[in-house]
C-alpha cells in the first residue's frame, strides 16, 4: 500500500467521523424526544429595578433570549457539604401543574433514574434564606431566527416585563441530555406567537 492510498484511507475515516458527529447530534435529539420526560420551566420575568444583572431576570439580547427560571432555587439544610467549585447533579421532579422542581442536589452522578442534569450551583448572597442555592440550568438560551425577531421583538420584550404573562419553556430530559421543545408565551407556542400580528398590524 503506497503512502497516497494510506493517506486517503485515513482521510476517509476522518471525514466519515466528521459527518457522523452532527448526524449523531440530530438522532440523539430524536431519541430524547421519544424517551425523555417533558418538564416545564417557568421563566422569570425581567426586572429593571434590580441593580445586579444576576437578578434582572430573562432578557432579549440580539437573536438570543437569555432565560432565568423561577424554579432555580434549592433549599437544603446541609448544602454546606456540597463542593460548589465542582459541577453538581440536580434530580428533577414536577409539581401537579407539570412545572419542574429540583428535589435533590448531589455531588455524584445518580446511579438510577433518568430525570437528572449536570448543573452549576452557587450561593446567591442576595437570597434571604442563606441555605438556599441558585442553580444554573444548561438550557438558558433560546435562539430566535431573524425573520421571527423582526415581527416579535417589541411584543416579546413587553411580555418579558409583564408579571401577569405566563412564560415557560418545555424541555425533554433524559440522563443529562435535553431537548428544548418549545417556548410557551401566554398559552401560545412560540411558533404561533410569532404568527400573531404586532401592534402595527403587520
Amino acid at each position, binding site marked *: 500500500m503506497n503512502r*497516497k492510498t494510506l493517506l486517503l484511507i485515513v482521510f476517509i475515516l476522518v471525514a466519515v467521523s466528521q459527518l457522523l458527529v*452532527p448526524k449523531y*447530534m440530530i438522532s440523539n*435529539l430524536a431519541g430524547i424526544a421519544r424517551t425523555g420526560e417533558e418538564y416545564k420551566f417557568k421563566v422569570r420575568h425581567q426586572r429593571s429595578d434590580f441593580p445586579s444583572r444576576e437578578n434582572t431576570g430573562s432578557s432579549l439580547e440580539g437573536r438570543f433570549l437569555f432565560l432565568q427560571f423561577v424554579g432555580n432555587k434549592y433549599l437544603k439544610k446541609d448544602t454546606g457539604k456540597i463542593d460548589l467549585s465542582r459541577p453538581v447533579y440536580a434530580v428533577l421532579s414536577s409539581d401537579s401543574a407539570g412545572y419542574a422542581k429540583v428535589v435533590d442536589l448531589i455531588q455524584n452522578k445518580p446511579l438510577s433514574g433518568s430525570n437528572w442534569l449536570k448543573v452549576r450551583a452557587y450561593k446567591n448572597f442576595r437570597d434571604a434564606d442563606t441555605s438556599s442555592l441558585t442553580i444554573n440550568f*444548561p*438550557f438558558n438560551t433560546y435562539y430566535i431566527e*431573524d425573520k421571527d425577531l423582526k415581527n416579535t421583538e417589541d411584543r416579546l420584550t413587553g411580555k418579558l416585563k409583564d408579571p401577569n404573562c405566563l412564560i415557560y419553556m418545555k424541555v425533554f430530559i433524559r440522563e443529562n441530555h435535553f*431537548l428544548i421543545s418549545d417556548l410557551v408565551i401566554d398559552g401560545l407556542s412560540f411558533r404561533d406567537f410569532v404568527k400573531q400580528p404586532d401592534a402595527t398590524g403587520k
Partner: protein
Amino acid sequence: MSLLKDLSELVKANVITSDIAQQISDYYKNKQVKSPNRQLLILGIIGALLIGIGVMFIIANQWDDLSKTTQTMIAFLLLIIPQLLGAFVIIWKEDKVVWKECTALLLFFAVGSSISLISQIYQINGEMSSYLLTWMMLTILLIYVFDSSAVSIACLIGIMSYGLTHRFDSPGEPGELIFWLLMALPLPHYLKLFRKSPDHPLLILHHWVIPFVLTLSLFTAFHTEKTLIPLAYVAMFGFFYLTGNLSYFRHKPMIYNGFRIFGLAGTIVTLLIMSFQPTWKALYSSHYSLGNLITTPDFLASVILFMLASTALYLQKKGKIMKDAKLLEITFLVFLVIFILGKYTQIAYVFVNLLILALAVLTIIDGSKRMKMSVLNSGLIIIALLAVCRSFDSDIRFVVKGGMFVLVGIGFFVANWLMLKKKKENES
C-alpha cells in the same frame, strides 16, 4: 531573482565561470521547487480563512428564510464540499503545499461551523468545552493527513481554549489527561518542521504560539494546591529561555525566538508578582507542607517542568565553566531556594526583590559590555517595573517612592548617554 539576472554580467566580467553560473542558477531553481512560495502560502491561508468566514455570512443573511431541513442540508454541504476538496488534493495535488494548507484549514473551520450550525438549528445548548473538544478531536488528524502547519497552529489554540473552558465548565472533573494528550499531538509535526524546513514562515509562528499556549494552559493543571503555581511557572519560563538559547535560535533574527522572549518576559513578570509581600502570605494560607503537596498532579507538573529546565541547563552548560552561566538561565534554581526558604522566613519577598534587581543590573552590564542599547535598556526597564511595583507598597514613604522614580529616570539618561559616547569613541 536579481542574482540570477546578474549572473551573465558576472560571467562576462570573468568574476565567475559559466559552470559556476549554471550551478548557482540550478541551486536557486531547485530551492524554489522544494520550498513553497512564502507569499502564496500566507495569502492562501488568509484566503481560506476569509472564504470560510464569507460563506458563513452569506448563508447567515438568507438563513432564516430556509426550512429546517434545508438548513440542515446546507450545514452538511458546508462540510462535505471541503471534504471532497480534501480528497481531490490528496489524490491530485499531494505535492502542492499551498493547496494542502488551504484545504486543511478550510476543512478545520468547516467542521467547527457545521457542529455549531446544527446546534443552532436544533436549539442544542451545551458546554463550550464539549463543543471545542469534539471539534479538536475531529480535526487534529488533518495535521498529519495534509502535513498542515496552519491546522497545527489552529489546533494548538483550539486545545488551549478547550482546556481553559473545561476549567470553568467542569472544574475538578477529569479532563486534564485528554487535554495534555491532545496538546502533545501536534508536537511531532512541529519537530519535523523544525528539522526539515527551519525557515518555514509557519514554523516561526509555531515558535510563538507554543510558548503562548503553554503559558495560558499551565494553570489548568493546578486545581488542588495553588501553592506551586509560581514555582512551576518560573521553571517553565526557565525552560523556554534555555530553549531560546539553542544554536538554531541564536543564529536567527529575534522574530524567530518566541521562546526566549516568553522566557525572559514570563520570568520577570512572575518574579514581579512574587515581589509583593501579600502574594507570599496568600501562599502560606494554603496547605504548604510536603505531605499535602506530594500526592497532587500539581506537584507532578512542577517536578516535570523542573526536570525539563534542569536537563536543558545541564545539556547547554556541559563541559563549560558554570560561572559563565547567566543569572537568567539559573533563575528557576535560585527561585526554588527562595521558595523553600519562604517556608522558614517571612522575608522571602525581599530575596525576590534582590533577585530582580540583580537580574536588571547584570542585564545592564551585559548590554554595556556588548554595546547593545536594546539589552541595556531592557535592564533599565526591569528596574523601572520594579520601582512601579514598589510604588504600590503602602509601607514605603512617598518621598522614597518619588526618589526611586527619579533615580530610575536619571539612570535611563545617564546609561544611554554613556553608551552613545562610548559608541562614538569606538567609531572614531
